[in-house]
């Protein structure tokens, strides 16, 4: 009995008098075993993240003859210079357009009496339901100069001689990216608008400031950090994404960094040195951007004492229906049109044929399942991988979050940092580092499906972790302490108290990881091997095979979008409400 009491006390940091206990010196082995909850996940992360990325960075300094800085001299070439210019212009353009649109529509939906603002909120999130590769190809269907459906519609409508738009240009790429990414800015800024204490604006009105001056001097400065963070987020995604650069960019002959990384490995012989160097550069840029974004959001100490929720909204007056018309026009073109284009092409007899009520056909849907060499297998692979990755991540990240938030074990800060780190690692960089790390024994995973699982685990680690962390932060620690007082063993506390209470958030994390894995392209494209294809690989291969396969690609995209659309929108709406 006495021994047991002793042991219990030594696990606590404080004794009954609230004074720190001076512990008797512990055996090193015992101390190690007490740190296992941190050491084990750190080992997992070492295999998942540290080893491949460190290997990548290291390998960029070596070639066949040994240590060299030769790879980096390629950064002085005009090829690299053009690459950087393209990438930065694309990123800046998309970030500006997406942030502007996202902020304006967030303000309209959250703060004003815009008609149908709830429906608009859902529509503004809807692009997130469309896989990026589907959005890219949809814009190609719609806005290529001669065959583009929307171009032809506009030419017919206005009697034009020439196509008004060409998606195969830099502005075209910027538009496609911005239309796809503005929901991110919308969500971030609408969170800021929604949590801002309205009485700050009321106080300005009472101080004699007009509505416009209040907006300029109070509202805007208060949401500015969120707008800046949204800008950096969209910029980051824009320069690391592969799907639009790898499709529209390839047809338009506008190379950007992530696509060039893929190409320099896909060519024969592979340009390893160039690929690793580009990867390190891209990794540096995105890491800096994510760091800056976190700094901005953490510095947002303007967290408001949440006063009473006031139901008063900004009255738009005569502008109300003009704002409605502008919102409708934007949503129709940026959000609904890609879905329409994709579905129309999937039902057309052939690409470029006019779709009518008499000639629509389901033959492409039949084709992909009965004749295409690997679509069926790809779907099976993708579903297996997505479920495995999402489930493993849910368990791992919840356990990690509990260790980080609820234990005093040293090293937990590092654990938290490392789980969040992959958010700064672009998909193409992950694939290059995994290629490099697992191509030879002892862990020769290239050529198996497991390398894809690794890639999906890494890519979704931060999202799953934030979901688990958000769920845990909403569980009052006293609930666990109550379980402890009633002598519940830790494992039982975890499964009977923590898991049920965090389940909604963890499930949300699961769905995000599932959807992301189902749609992942850049890592899959470099890491798949025959027999281990995925859905997005199948779509991309069809795109590369040329025009005659695009209708089939449209069919597969439509099916994939149907599966991911609803869960994606629901998860995003939920995250807007709970602030996960």
């Amino acid at each position: 009995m006495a021994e047991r009491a002793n042991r219990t006390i030594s696990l606590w940091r404080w004794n009954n008098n609230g004074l720190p206990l001076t512990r008797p010196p512990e055996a090193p082995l015992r101390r190690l075993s007490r740190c296992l909850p941190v050491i084990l996940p750190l080992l997992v992360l070492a295999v998942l993240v540290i080893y491949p990325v460190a290997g990548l960075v290291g390998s960029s300094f070596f070639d066949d003859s040994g240590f060299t800085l030769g790879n980096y001299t390629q950064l002085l070439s005009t090829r690299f210079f053009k690459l950087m210019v393209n990438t930065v212009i694309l990123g800046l353009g998309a970030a500006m357009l997406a942030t502007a649109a996202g902020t304006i529509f967030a303000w309209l939906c959250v703060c004003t009496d815009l008609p149908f603002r709830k429906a608009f909120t859902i529509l503004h999130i809807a692009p997130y339901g469309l896989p990026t590769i589907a959005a890219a190809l949809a814009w190609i269907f719609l806005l290529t100069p001669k065959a583009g459906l929307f171009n032809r519609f506009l030419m017919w409508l206005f009697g034009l001689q020439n196509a008004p738009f060409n998606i195969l240009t830099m502005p075209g790429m910027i538009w496609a990216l911005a239309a796809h990414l503005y929901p991110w800015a919308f969500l971030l800024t609408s969170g800021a608008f929604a949590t801002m204490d309205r009485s700050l604006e009321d106080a300005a009105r009472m101080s004699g400031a007009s509505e416009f001056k209040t907006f300029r001097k109070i509202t805007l400065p208060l949401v500015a950090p969120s707008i800046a963070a949204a800008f950096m987020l969209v910029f980051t995604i824009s320069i690391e994404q592969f799907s639009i650069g790898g499709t529209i960019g390839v047809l338009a002959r506008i190379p950007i960094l992530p696509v060039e990384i893929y190409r320099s490995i896909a060519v024969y012989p592979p340009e390893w040195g160039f690929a690793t160097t580009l990867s390190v550069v891209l990794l540096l840029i995105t890491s800096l951007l994510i760091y800056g974004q976190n700094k901005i959001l953490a510095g947002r100490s303007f967290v408001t004492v949440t006063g009473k929720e006031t139901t008063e909204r900004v009255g738009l007056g005569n502008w109300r229906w003009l704002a409605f018309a502008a919102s409708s026009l934007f949503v129709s073109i940026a959000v609904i049109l890609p879905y329409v284009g994709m579905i129309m092409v999937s039902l057309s007899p052939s690409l470029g044929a006019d779709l009518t009520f008499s000639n629509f056909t389901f033959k492409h849907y039949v084709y992909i399942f009965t004749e295409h060499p690997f679509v069926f297998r790809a779907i099976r692979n993708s579903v297996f991988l997505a479920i495995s990755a999402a489930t493993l991540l849910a368990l791992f990240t919840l356990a990690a979050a509990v260790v980080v938030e609820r234990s005093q074990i040293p090293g937990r800060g590092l654990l938290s940092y490392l789980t969040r780190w992959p958010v700064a690692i672009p998909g193409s960089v992950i694939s290059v580092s995994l290629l490099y790390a697992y191509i030879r024994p002892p862990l020769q995973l290239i050529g198996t499906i497991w390398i894809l699982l690794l890639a999906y685990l890494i890519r979704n680690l931060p999202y799953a972790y934030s979901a688990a962390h958000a769920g845990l932060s909403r569980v009052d620690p006293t609930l666990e302490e109550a379980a402890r007082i009633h002598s519940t063993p830790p494992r039982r506390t975890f499964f009977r108290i923590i898991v049920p209470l965090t389940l909604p958030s963890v499930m949300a994390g699961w769905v995000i990881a599932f959807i992301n894995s189902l749609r992942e392209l850049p890592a899959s494209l470099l890491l798949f091997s025959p027999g281990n294809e995925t859905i997005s690989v199948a779509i991309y291969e069809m795109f590369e095979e040329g025009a005659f396969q695009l209708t089939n690609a449209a069919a597969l995209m439509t099916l994939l979008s149907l599966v991911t659309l609803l869960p994606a929108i629901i998860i995003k709406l939920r995250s807007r409400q709970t602030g996960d």
Partner: protein
Amino acid sequence: MAHVELRKLRKLYGKTIAVDGVDLDIGKGEFMTLLGPSGCGKTTTLRMIAGLIEPTDGEIRVGGRLLSSPGIKVVPPEKRNMGMVFQSYAVWPHMKVFENVAFPLHNLKKSKEEIRNRVRAALELVKLDGLEDRYPSHLSGGQQQRVALARAMAVEPDILLFDEPLSNLDAKLREEMRFELKEIQRRIGVTSIYVTHDQAEAMAISDRIAVMSHGQIKQIGKPREIYDSPEDPFTAEFIGLANFFPGKATSEKTVCLAGRQELEINGCNMLNVGADVILSIRPHNIKIYKEVNKARNELQGIVEKGAYLGDKVDYRVRVGESILRIQTPPGEVFTEGTEVSLHLPAEKISVIPVTRA
């Protein structure tokens, strides 16, 4: 300084009635409190006076100037020359203390010199001089509230509006701030309208109180009047503790209780013989004795529970069907089950006529 007139002020949200025909006159320099539970319409009324909410119906006049009336364009808040202190302080987090207080003065296009002097004076008044260059995030809640107060006063507004300004402060600070607020208001003599759900705060601070419930004003009066002679059950119950029991008027000076006992009351000429009434008496106004005195207004009961609270004893005594709450200074302590006599002094009983809808 100005007087305020509200006439038949109404606010509807869809079909919900938030404010239901409020009439109120507030004199120059008066400190008027709107008191009521949450959802009673007091904040909505205040925000309509401020111009932050447009009334559905009714008129608002300040200093004789018509600010809001059906059919005319409502004067926007920035043109009303009022100051307001909010529950959440609403101190702008991206501006220093000085800038917060100077902001309204800038809006009035005052000279730099004047702004500096006025900000200094306002900060001195709220005892924050020396903190001009701090950001609000480095101030305590109490200090932030003082910044908000200084900001509201700096422009010398016609009216000062307070929306539960002390409810985010801790109990001790709240009591200190009450007196300080009142003192500052008295010194600058500005007409003030104060919203709170805390009756002690309202009593301590107000010249007059308007008790609100379900969007209507139930009673207006000095704190003492409201407490001593509540005119309806809601007011009696909401302000302090009260016992209620139903009865029937048998004459102008007597009421018959359900237990057929008759109680003498102070004459009430509004009372019709045979009318249903509700009697109310505060727990500390009931005397409790061991022995039966056979005096008038004496009821017999049994002690059900007693709690010793240090400065008083809190009893629940069963009288017939009902339980009366009684608070006495701790002298003789009666144990549970003791038979006791209660004396209800006629002058302490409030008679509230029952209005049948």
